[in-house]
């Protein structure tokens, strides 16, 4: 087969490309230029740096495959950055990795793979795809600590039929060992950060891009009483305990962030805890929905353990009832449903209650 491999310049996608070559496929490597500095050039820090593209290029050269940098800046700005900022302004906590995977990698790039005459798109995600005889299934990566199935939950049968995730079968240690064995220069490269395009500092990014997030405003409690002030909502995220600049006898947590009104709401731990949440924009990988009241495990943040819950249809979405109250359930984040190793699907948390 001819395979297009999305190469970020990191070790996972380097080894994904190498694996495809070793399996005897005809491989084309591409790096997506998603973001550029103010002068239009690749940035020197954060993601999509010149150094990342050069790393990917050297790996491709070592593997003897053609390599290209594709310009996806407009697409990324329209569908990922704009979504991130508008969601943030709407008082939510967006996950741009999911939008990027949905719109760019497994959207525009997947169509591009076909245009380039490729049969499949391979990426370096830690997750697995298998076929149970009837349907494609998305499974968590072998390396539980590195599992990235959360950011792939919105893929459907069409996408899963067209992608390969060779790294999902390997642990990170094995990936690095393989890179070292092949003499790839990315073997010891540090893992990339989530939220790649904000170049490591989410707060700084918000302050620069969204003047609303840098405006001073009140800190209020659940009753609306002003209990303090802040220098910009950019500094706060739901569940945050430190750096509130207010002191009470017992800890206070951020329970709401509204950039539009520059208001940060804080409350006690119990005010942060919810029994359920409403999830909208739900999709299921199999194409069909599980039974009412299905018992699943739910991940409500990328880097947190899945918790037991049941799913109930509500307003076209799903009401997720947790078996134990959860802290910091943030609207805008994805809720992803698992059964064992299998990803059933997921959606976006609309409200926590």
């Amino acid at each position, binding site marked *: 087969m001819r395979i297009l491999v999305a190469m970020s310049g990191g070790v996972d996608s380097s080894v994904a490309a190498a694996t495809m070559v070793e399996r005897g496929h005809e491989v*084309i490597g591409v*790096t997506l*230029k998603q973001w550029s500095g103010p002068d*239009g*050039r*690749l940035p020197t820090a954060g993601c999509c740096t*010149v150094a990342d*593209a*050069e790393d990917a*290029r050297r790996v491709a050269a070592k593997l003897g495959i*053609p390599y*290209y*940098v*594709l*310009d996806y800046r407009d697409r990324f700005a329209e569908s990922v950055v704009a979504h991130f900022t508008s969601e943030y302004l709407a008082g939510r906590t967006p996950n741009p990795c999911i939008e990027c995977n949905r719109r760019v990698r497994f959207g525009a790039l997947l169509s*591009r793979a076909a*245009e*380039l*005459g490729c049969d499949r798109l391979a990426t370096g995600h830690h997750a697995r795809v298998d076929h149970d005889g009837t349907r494609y299934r998305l499974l968590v990566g072998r390396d539980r600590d590195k599992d990235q199935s959360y950011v792939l939950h919105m893929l459907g049968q069409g996408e899963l039929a067209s992608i390969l995730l060779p790294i999902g079968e390997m642990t990170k240690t094995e990936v690095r060992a393989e890179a070292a064995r092949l003499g790839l220069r990315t073997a010891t490269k540090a893992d990339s950060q989530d939220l790649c395009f904000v170049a490591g500092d989410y707060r700084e990014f918000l302050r620069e891009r969204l003047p609303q997030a840098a405006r001073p405003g009140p800190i209020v409690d659940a009753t609306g009483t002003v209990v303090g002030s802040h220098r910009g909502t950019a500094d706060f995220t739901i569940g945050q305990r430190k750096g509130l600049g207010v002191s009470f006898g017992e800890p206070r947590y951020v329970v709401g962030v509204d950039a539009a009104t520059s208001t940060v709401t804080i409350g006690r731990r119990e005010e942060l805890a919810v029994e359920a949440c409403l999830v909208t924009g739900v999709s299921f990988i199999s194409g069909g929905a599980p039974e009412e009241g299905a018992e699943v495990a739910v991940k409500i943040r990328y880097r947190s353990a899945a918790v037991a819950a049941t799913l109930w249809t509500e307003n076209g979405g799903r009401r997720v009832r947790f078996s134990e109250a959860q802290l910091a359930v943030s609207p805008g984040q994805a809720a992803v449903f698992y059964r064992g190793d299998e990803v059933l699907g997921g959606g976006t948390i609309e409200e926590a209650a």
Partner: protein
Amino acid sequence: MLYLDHAATTPMRPEAREAMAPYLDADFGNPSGLHAPSRRAKDAIESARERLAALLGAAHPLDVVFTGGGTESDNLGLAGPCLAGSGRGGVVISAVEHEAVIETARFLGRLGCPVRVVPVDRFGRATPGDVAAAVDESTRVVSVMAANNETGVIQPVAEIAAAAREANPAVLVHTDAVQAMVSLPVNLGLLGVDLLTVASHKVGGPKGVGALVMRPGIELEPVIHGGGQELGRRSGTHDVAGIVGMVAAAEAAVFDRDRFGRDVGEARSRFEAKLTAAVPDVVFTIGAGADRLVQHSHFRVPGISAETLLIRLDGAGVAASAGSACQSGALEMSHVLAAMDLPAEEAAECVRITFGWTTSPHDGDSAAAAVATVVGDLR
């Protein structure tokens, strides 16, 4: 492999390789010494200087400055006169200049030199009137390229030079003739310019060598400082083999120009005719609308991105390009096409095919067939 990117660089001519060989081997001397090996190296570059001066119409061999390439020649051609005598002379450039000129102008602007950018028509040409209107008493250098590297469109440089001097008799006119020299007669007198940039590798010489050729008596502030080579105008030990190779290639190119024009012209005619027959909606950016270099064909196929087309061609063993790529190799919105008012979506579809001295007329057929095959696959 079908190589259709001769404007990016072209294979080395055998004359250049042969001329260079001794200086990569036995005649390795540094031309700036007093002993015999130095004298042999010095003799080689001074002979090359005399021959390039004759080729490009310089009055005296010392009006040729050897540089590290076309980009450096452009830097020196603009910054040299503008900054001479601790001056802050102004520059007037066209909007479609090579980045070497545009970025130098921007740099001079940061140093306090007045900079004006002249718009172009829809074929990418600056008019003598617009250039003259931009020139005033602060203007030191006017720079308009002889032919554009992306589209191949030929600028009316002689008319522009005359109009600029009418506006201010003291201005110096510089032209970047890097692309034009391959197929057009290029010299100071014909183009009516005071400073002329040429580059070695575009005419079949080695990379990393160029020259700035001038009328006598022009004072230059150097952009590279050091041991004072090239009469202090460009320091650094000479790339003897490179200089010798460049001049041998330039002579070979001039000698070969008529044959080049015939073969390349035939290749391009066949390419454009056959591609039009196979893909009737293909759009040639310049086409018959304006004079263009014989080796350039710049076109787009509506609905097919340049990225996709070029990658598919590469996969089929055909090397072509878009005009503009960034450091990473990603295609960029071309400032040339933007200045020509081409919408961004159309600019992103533009592909450049450039033929060269190794092209046979039949390559035009093969090129058209390759593009047509990819377009057929995609549609």
